[in-house]
């Protein structure tokens, strides 16, 4: 049985353009969310009211808004405020995903850092570490054990949420699939079920092992 002719070009475009952009966007969003989230989450453990209130507000806003609304705000509203804040679709999507992801990471980090016993802080201080050194070399390495399972879970969510950037036209997996579906429809062929089905399979193959890994890490590092 030979494969139908339409599959080749579709698969090539979806994998070369779509999958590549999805993975790129996911990687940028994961790194950005982790760096900003861990920093904000650690700062949130300092008992200084103004910074606490500001970080709290940041977390509650970006966790509270649907990601699509955040994407629209970055893509449509920021340029209206200042023309320096005009971004292409992928950059706008990455910024929006980082705003949302870093809010999630910040909340988890706060919990992880606070779960480290006081004695660890005191011991580190006794060894002459300042606040930054104490957190970077003593507290964080321990908190990371608690942070790892949710971070893998976040990666799954990030990968899935990159599809939302399709709505402003960024050429990730779903957008690349839609372009191919439309091209084929224009040529008089209907393959939406097969193509979107394949996209679901691709996402499943990436996400399922990661969800399992997250559950496994949670059991092992608990």
């Amino acid at each position, binding site marked *: 049985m030979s494969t139908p002719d339409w599959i080749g070009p579709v698969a090539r475009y979806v994998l070369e353009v779509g999958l590549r952009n999805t993975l790129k966007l996911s990687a940028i969003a994961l790194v950005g969310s982790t760096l900003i989230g861990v920093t904000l989450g650690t700062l949130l453990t300092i008992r200084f009211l103004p910074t606490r209130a500001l970080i709290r507000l940041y977390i509650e806003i970006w966790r*509270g808004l649907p*990601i699509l*609304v955040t994407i*629209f705000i970055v893509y449509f509203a920021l340029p209206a405020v200042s023309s320096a804040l005009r971004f292409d679709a992928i950059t706008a999507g990455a910024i929006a995903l980082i705003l949302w992801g870093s809010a999630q990471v910040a909340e988890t980090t706060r919990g992880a850092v606070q779960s480290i016993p006081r004695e660890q802080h005191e011991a580190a201080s006794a060894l002459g570490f300042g606040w930054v050194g104490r957190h970077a070399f003593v507290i964080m390495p321990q908190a990371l054990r608690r942070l790892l399972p949710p971070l893998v879970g976040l990666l799954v969510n990030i990968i*899935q949420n990159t599809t939302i950037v399709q*709505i402003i036209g960024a050429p990730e997996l*779903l957008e690349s699939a839609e372009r191919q579906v439309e091209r084929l429809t224009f040529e008089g062929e209907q393959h*939406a*079920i097969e193509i979107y089905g394949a*996209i679901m399979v691709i996402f499943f193959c990436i996400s399922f092992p990661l969800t399992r890994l997250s559950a496994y890490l949670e059991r092992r590092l608990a």
Partner: protein
Amino acid sequence: MILGLLDPSFLGDVWSFARDNRDELVDALRRTLTVSAIAIAGASIIGLTLGAARAHRIPVVSQLAAVYVEVIRNTPILVQIFMLYFALPQIGIRLEAFTVAWLAVMIWGGAFNTENFRAGFEAVPTRYREAGAALGFKGIATFTNITLPIGGRIALPSSINTYISIVKNTSLMYVISYPEITTVVLQINALTLQTVEAFSTLAISYLVIVWSMSALIRILERHLALPEEAR
């Protein structure tokens, strides 16, 4: 510039934008809430039944539920919406935008809720069920009198979190042009070009709904908290 957002007159601008477009915004918000309410009701029923089937390892149903949960949780909801609205017509199934709107978030929320309730029911100590059996309760009676009230309470906070996500995900119905709040605000923006006011109104609408629901979690947690012994 951005600091302009801190100008007190800015809130006045947002308020007058909301007042100028009151009728459309109220209708749109009503649709967002209607779709969310239908989906939340459906997801609760799915979560309770399938969660119970998973926790009690009822043959066949439990395995099918597991497949449903894994497929939905490991694929993006937006692709699921595309499947329902743009792909199904290929095999002659044409659903209205309204139907897809509540159906998609219901299927999605149901999968997450199945996990919430499974975890809740499984967290009920076996000795409680044994105590029920000792009192002469049959299987179903043990569930409705012991597992459901205790496990349901344990699952409540996480299930409300799923309901919050359901409300947020209705914004994705923008792609099928269902006139909920996100779609309508974008339409108004295209006509009026009051971009900052439009998106501020949109953001405030969602934050009010989402923040109220999370406040509800905290209130309910305090009210329905189990005595320490029962955890």
